[in-house]
């Protein structure tokens, strides 16, 4: 009866596959990731179908609202003339949002609670900012390590600090999303375990809390996706504008 509250984060292969000696077994996380992709794709295809109507449908107005909001982010942080990043930012937001939301369905899996997934996103974004920075500014890009207007005597002190704060960016992106999702789901598991093991006249209390925490997690799912995309825009804008 003793089950660890971290048990549901463990992954075991459900379909064993291997390709030329490399293990490519499918597990729950991969199925959930496919489901998340499919949900985003199907919802937007449905929206796309109603395009051109004079009175927008409900789905269409929600999609327009979210896309305008994301375009506002891109305009604010990266700049109006850099709208070519908008598809990337929007895809990232909707994918993370749908992954977080799927995780809230009981019995499914939260893939954003695996640091491998969030870390891959973050490292990809970090690499992208480096490529864009060196592509746009050439060797002047090293100037990002030297904030303007500091005295010369502070330069040897500032460079390690700036390097650390630059390297901390992908880590903080990855850790924030991973930690928030993991913490929320662990709390849910602990409360639910309590409500199962306690007698019913006390057990209804933790059960009620799981409902409330689920509502909180819904908000956290949205906010974490929003923060992830905001910071992506901020980092991209930072290397494009160079302070």
């Amino acid at each position: 009866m003793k089950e660890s509250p971290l048990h549901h984060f463990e992954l075991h292969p459900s379909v064993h596959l291997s390709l030329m000696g490399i293990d490519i077994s499918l597990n729950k996380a991969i199925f959930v990731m496919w489901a998340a992709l499919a949900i985003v794709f199907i919802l937007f295809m449905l929206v796309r179908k109603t395009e051109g109507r004079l009175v927008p449908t409900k789905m269409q107005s929600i999609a327009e609202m979210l896309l305008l909001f994301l375009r506002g982010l891109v305009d604010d942080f990266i700049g109006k003339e850099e709208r070519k990043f908008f598809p990337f930012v929007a895809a990232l937001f909707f994918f993370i949002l749908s992954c977080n939301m799927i995780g809230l369905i009981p019995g499914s899996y939260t893939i954003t609670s695996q640091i491998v997934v969030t870390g891959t996103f973050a490292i990809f974004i970090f690499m992208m900012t480096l490529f864009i920075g060196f592509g746009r500014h050439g060797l002047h890009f090293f100037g990002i390590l030297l904030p303007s207007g500091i005295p010369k005597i502070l330069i040897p002190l500032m460079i390690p600090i700036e390097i650390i704060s630059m390297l901390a960016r992908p880590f903080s992106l990855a850790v924030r999303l991973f930690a928030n999702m993991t913490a929320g789901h662990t709390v849910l598991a602990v409360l639910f375990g309590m409500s199962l093991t306690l007698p019913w006249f006390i057990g209804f209390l933790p059960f009620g809390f799981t409902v409330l925490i689920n509502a909180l997690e819904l908000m956290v799912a949205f906010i974490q996706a929003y923060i992830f995309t905001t910071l992506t825009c901020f980092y991209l804008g930072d290397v494009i504008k160079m302070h």
Partner: protein
Amino acid sequence: MSGPFRLSIPCRNKLMSKGSSIRQGIGIAFRLGTELVVATMIGALMGYAMDNYFDTKPWGILAGVIFGGAAGCLTVYRTAMTLQFDEEENNGDQTPKGEDS
């Protein structure tokens, strides 16, 4: 036809409008906490790696923690400054600026 997830229009505007204080506040709160911790951790890790590489046992990790903490504080400071700047800009639209600022 009204779905179960319909938000009232003021609520929707509050969550989605550009200068929404709730959304911005929560966003900032979630950002700054991890920023400090992660920068310190990165600094400590870099110091630890240096210790192992150059064999300077305690000094690398000490300097790393201090530099990492400084980097975290700097990031938080910058975020806070841009936030304050935005707020002043927003207030400037509605009310005239005070003399004492």
